[in-house]
């Protein structure tokens, strides 16, 4: 779906969310704690929300939210983000978008 691609490319880290979804909020908090100002796109406040939801599900996001895009590419949902973080890969992916210099393991 074009709109998803468009929104996803507007920012380094984009989280498709719903205002009532607490798991989406948890993912937001994680990125915030890693020094990333993620763009949160609430699909329940989007007029095309229903289509976005269907498209996300077709892309494999069973939630369908949260759906996380980094650098315009779909990373997945909470499971994928957690796995990436534990393996250390997430930090590498978000490095270009980190706003705070964290005392991380370089």
């Amino acid at each position, binding site marked *: 779906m074009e709109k998803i691609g468009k929104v996803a490319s507007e920012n380094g880290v984009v989280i498709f969310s719903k205002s*009532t*979804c*607490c*798991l989406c*909020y*948890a*993912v937001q*908090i*994680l990125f915030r*704690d*890693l020094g990333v100002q993620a763009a949160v796109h609430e699909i329940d406040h989007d007029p095309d929300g229903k289509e976005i939801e269907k498209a996300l599900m077709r892309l494999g996001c069973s*939630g369908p939210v949260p759906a996380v895009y980094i650098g315009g590419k779909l990373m997945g949902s*909470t*499971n994928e983000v*957690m*796995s990436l*973080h*534990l*393996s*250390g890969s*997430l930090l590498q992916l978000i490095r270009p978008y980190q706003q705070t210099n964290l005392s991380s*393991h370089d």
Partner: protein
Amino acid sequence: MNSTTTHFVPSRRMGLYEPLHQMSMWGDFRLDSPPPPPLVLEVDANLDNQSEDTSRPTFGASQEASKPDDKVLRRLAQNREAARKSRLRKKAYVQQLENSKLRLIQLEQELDRARQQGMCVDASQLAYTGNTNPGITAFEAEYGHWVEEQNRQVSDLKNALHSEMGDMELQIFVEGGMRHYFELFAMKVTAARADVFYIMSGMWKTSAERFFLWIGGFRPSELLKVLSPHLDALTEQQRLDIVNLTQSCQQAEDALSQGMEKLQFILAQAIADGLLREGNYLPQIGAAMNKLEDLVRFVVQADHLRQETLQQISRILTIRQAASGLLALGEYLQRLRVLSSCWSSHPRDVCVSKI
């Protein structure tokens, strides 16, 4: 002579009535009629004699003649009533005893079942097993088997590590151990869908395990911190990797915890919506039920984090180190269960005297 009989007969009469009265109650359940007449008549005869005694005050011949009959009839009626009430009381008491007996048998069965499953039995667990949710009953049974298998694996691991076993064979034990935990996570997901509050409260765990509860299970970063110092021969790279893994784990946990807090608040708000207003609260209950779906997602996510942590640590460690780690984890959990059992059964006054 007459004066003594005057005093004698009423008490004798009463004495005659009381034991008969009781006999009819406890001796023969089916006896619905009042005590047999003959004795009554005998007493009547005495009374009749009494009424003709000149020493007694007289009010009139006719009244004299009818008074004993009335008294006797009234007394008969009172006795019938008392007997009836007594039978009803006894029936209620017996019913109560039967119920208590059934409850006792039920409790003994639950106790046996719990002991067989190797679970530590403490009062709070027993109190809960009135659960009639089939999904949860099934989970509890499966968990009992899981613990038995866990204990077997722990002792197998111990023997394997002390033997001359090579890495290839040891790997089989490691993979088996990991898979066993993954099976538990799968069981928990199913159970969470059946009753998420049950999983969130850690009801299937022993009390000491519940003390460490975080979103329906262990906090993975805590386990990493507690167990990794016991691992031998870690290289510098391994140490660094474990530190990084622990930190990432903690960050993920903190994010989930904050999401949970938000969910708690939203749920509380949904339940409280419309308090003190007219109308029923069914819409609020419905709204809360919808939000509970989110809670299931959190439990699933937390278990996923536990699984990922296990997988990551197994990638960092050598096979032998991973086997030691699994053994350490298994023994640690066993100790927690023993702690629960000891705590719930130790006499409190012993504890006080030590202070």
